[in-house]
Every structure is written in C-alpha cells, then in structure tokens.
C-alpha cells in the first residue's frame, strides 16, 4: 500500500550543471523519461523530462541538412536552464492510491519520493503502478475470470464465496466494482482453475446472474 514498498530506489539523477546530451544519454540508456535533478547532498532541486529536452532540440531529420548553428547553440544550455524547479513530490508514507490520484490529476508520468529537507529516496512512475496492478489482479497466474452481478445487500459475497469453496477452487483475486444498474455491483472473482463449468451452473442455481463476457 505504501509508496516506500513500491517505488524505485537507486534513482538515476542528474546535476544541474550537466549538459543536455548527458541527460539524453542517461534517458536512452535506462529507458527513463524523467530525471530528478539533485544537489551534492542528494536534495531534490528540480526535474527534467524527455519532453523538456525534445522541445529544445531541432527535429533530428533537419539536423544534418540545416542547422549546425542551432545544434551548437542548444548545446550551450544546461539542465538548470530547462528543468522544472520545485517539482511535485510524494512521501514514502503516502499510499499507492495517493499516487494514482495525483498522477491522474496532474498529468505527470512520475513523482520523486522525498523525505525531510527534500532528500530524494526514490521515484514512483506510472510503470511501477502498472506492475503493482498486474500483481494485485494476479494476471500472471493461470486462472479464469468470472463476472457476477449482485444486489447491493448484505450476505451476497458469502453466498458466492461458499459456492466457490464448495467446488474446492482457490481465489487468485476478487474485485468488486460499481455497476451501471442502481442497487447492483459487479463482482469479478479470478479463480485458479480451468474447471469453471460446474461453478457457473451452481451460481446460476443459487440465483446469481453471470454477465456475458462480451458485456463486461
């Protein structure tokens, strides 16, 4: 749940006086799009992204034909000239949900993780969150996904879990989400079995509606 568990530690950073080509090299070597800028005490002072760099440089297919001058002049820039100062950050004790909402609201791809005095201890990106999502959903375990529509009243989950346990089936994960019909929810159990036939019959017999996968 906490950023500290999910973030990337050992962050690749850059110095404010480095030149643009050094940033480019680091980004393409590690396939990153964000480089936090830190001082000699590892305190965060800015962030530079691949978009910052690309909006500075001329398109590469013009470079040979036209503007050796432009290339030369852009190489005069340093990271401190193009970085975003005082970037939005997150703390290690914030949660994955905090990061999801913040990244979504701010249209960012990554957030540096800092502690007191802006000391950089990690970075969390959309990629890290995708990985967590895949883990939580159990997408890499062999199983079958079902979709059951339930009335929003107490006792429904127990009936579902009972039916599944009676068939001796294990859960990979279970997701309960909103459904467009009022007073109903959609339950998505991810079940670690190939043998889903008898369970579907049982759930229908107990009175549940199984949603056609094409309507999920």
């Amino acid at each position, binding site marked *: 749940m906490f950023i500290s568990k999910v973030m990337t530690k050992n962050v690749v950073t850059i110095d404010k006086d480095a030149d643009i080509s050094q940033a480019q090299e680091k980004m393409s070597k590690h396939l990153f799009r964000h480089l936090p800028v830190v001082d000699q005490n590892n305190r965060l002072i800015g962030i530079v992204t691949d978009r910052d760099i690309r909006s500075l440089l001329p398109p590469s297919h013009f470079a040979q034909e036209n503007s050796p001058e432009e290339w030369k002049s852009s190489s005069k820039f340093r990271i401190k000239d193009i970085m975003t100062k005082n970037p939005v950050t997150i703390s290690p004790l914030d949660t994955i949900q905090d990061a999801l909402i913040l990244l979504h609201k701010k249209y960012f791809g990554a957030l540096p993780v800092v502690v007191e005095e802006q000391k950089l201890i990690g970075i969390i990106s959309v990629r890290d969150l995708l990985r967590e999502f895949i883990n939580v959903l159990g*997408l*890499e*375990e*062999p*199983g*079958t*996904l079902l979709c059951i529509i339930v009335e929003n009243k107490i006792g429904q989950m127990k009936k579902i879990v009972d039916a599944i346990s009676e068939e*001796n*089936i*294990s859960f990979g994960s279970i997701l309960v989400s909103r459904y467009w019909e009022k007073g109903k929810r959609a339950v998505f159990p991810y079940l*670690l*079995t*190939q*043998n*889903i*036939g*008898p369970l*579907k019959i049982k759930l229908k017999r107990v009175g549940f509606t199984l949603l*056609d*996968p*094409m309507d999920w």
Partner: protein
Amino acid sequence: MKKTGFLYDERYLLHDTGPGHPESPERLKAIYQGILDADLLSKLTIIQASRADLKWIETVHAKNYIERFEAACRSGDSMLDYPDNQMCAETFETALLAVGGVLDAAGRVMTGKLDNVFCAVRPPGHHAEYDHAMGFCYFNNVAIAARYLQIEWGIQRVGIVDFDVHHGNGTQHIFEEDPDVFYYSIHQHPTFAFPGTGRAFETGNGKGTGSTRNYPVLPGDGDKEYLGLIQRDLIPVIEAFSPEVIIVSAGFDAHADDDMSDIKLSTQGYTRIMERVVALAEVYSNGRVISVLEGGYCLKRLPELAANHVKVLLCV
C-alpha cells in the same frame, strides 16, 4: 485412403482424477466408441502405448520436476502443483505411457509406415511447463514429440497447430526462443479464459521472435472466426515456415456444447479446420500430421468429433 494410425490404450483409463472431474477416463471411452461405431477401426493401424524413455522427457522437462512428480505419485499425493491436477497411484505411469505412445506414433510417421496418426491419450499435455504441472497436464506430450523429431529424425522445421480452446502456455514457453518450432494457437481470449496467456502480442523471444503466433478469439465466436483466421493467417504462416511435419494439439473443447469455454465451434467447423490442416500438410509437409488429443469434455459430442477427425486423416 491414407495409412492412418490410431494410438489408444486401455491403460490411459487408469489415470483417475476422482469423481466429477472433467478430465475423465470416460472421454477416451467416448472417443473410442465413436470411432468404433463409425466403422473406422478396421481402416486404422492401432498402436498400443509404450513407456517413454526418461531421456526424451528430459529434453523438455527439468529432471527434478520429473523426480518430484514420481515421488508425489508414489507417496499417494492427491494432486500435483494445482488442485486441477488430481492424481492417483497410476498417474505417473500413465503419463509416461502417453509420451511413449506419441513418440512411437511419430516414429512410424517418419519411417513412412504411416501417413498420419491420431493419438487418443490421457493425460493431456499442452499446459505442462518445464518444471511444473498445470491445467490437467503433466508431461507436454506434443513438446516432447517435437524435440524427438528434431533430435532423432533431424527435422529442421516443426509446425505445431493448437486448436484446443485454451492457450497452450507450456508448449509456447518451451519453444518461445526456438526459431525451428513454430507454435500457432487459436484459443479463447486470455482475459476470459484459462490460463490467461496467449495474447496476440506474444510472438516469441530472442532467436524465436516471429515463430509463435497467438489468435485469441472472443466469447461467442465460432466457425466464422476460426475459418476466417485459418484462411487469412494459418495458411500464409505455414506457407512461409514450410514445416516438415505438422503436430496438432487437438482439443475439442471449443465446441458449442462443451462447458469449458464460451466458444461456439460446430461439429462441422471442427471438420473444416482439420481439412485445412491436412491439406496444408499435403503441400508442405509430405502429408505428415501427428495429431495428439488435448482437451474436449463434452461426452455427448466427443464420439462424433473423434470419428470426423479420423475420417479427415484417412481422407475418406
């Protein structure tokens, strides 16, 4: 009429998965009955099972997995790795007999004693991975057959066509980096079906990039989609790869009446698919087809499906 072999052995019935399990001995009895009732037995060369040499199993599976499987079976464990894989005291032996029978059948096709063969084996194989059992499968019969063809017979290009409704994760992973074995699978989309692998963007790794092809189909799809895919994709793939032998992972669980999936393939649809595969083998693989049973759980439909499958191989 072709010289078609039929691998079937009553010892395959001894792998007891317990009451109510869909991968039951009844499936094989239904298949045998269907072939018998269609008056096809006399036209076929019956092959009895034989125990596989462990060295062939080791070409695909980790030695310590094989030992672990045998030990678990001998200790009387009721399952291996997943609850879907129910075992009895005979399971390890039966799995060895399945592999052995398939290799014997493959050898006969290679010597020309047979043109093609249908191997009605249990337990199935295409979910079995390098080091674990899964999805009713223990040893990957088809993968071991492919390795056998490469090593024993010097085959340079093996084509595997898997039309079982579930993605053959084991087979794909075993050959994912091998450019000499093409794995082609049509299966229910992994978001909606076991085992959750086999997405269209999985096309092989490293040297094997381009020699895996996955075609997920959506719930409710059937004849139109399957035959369309075969026309648009399988034919060009086989043309380009030009396999010397085609191994078929023949699962009948995409049938509309089979509870294991939401796919609606008809009995005729299955016949059409196999006709295309056999026709391709005729052009590119010297007619050599080794068809191995994977899934298929509707006891009512299996007799006819099996009989039709064999009729296509026989060319009658």
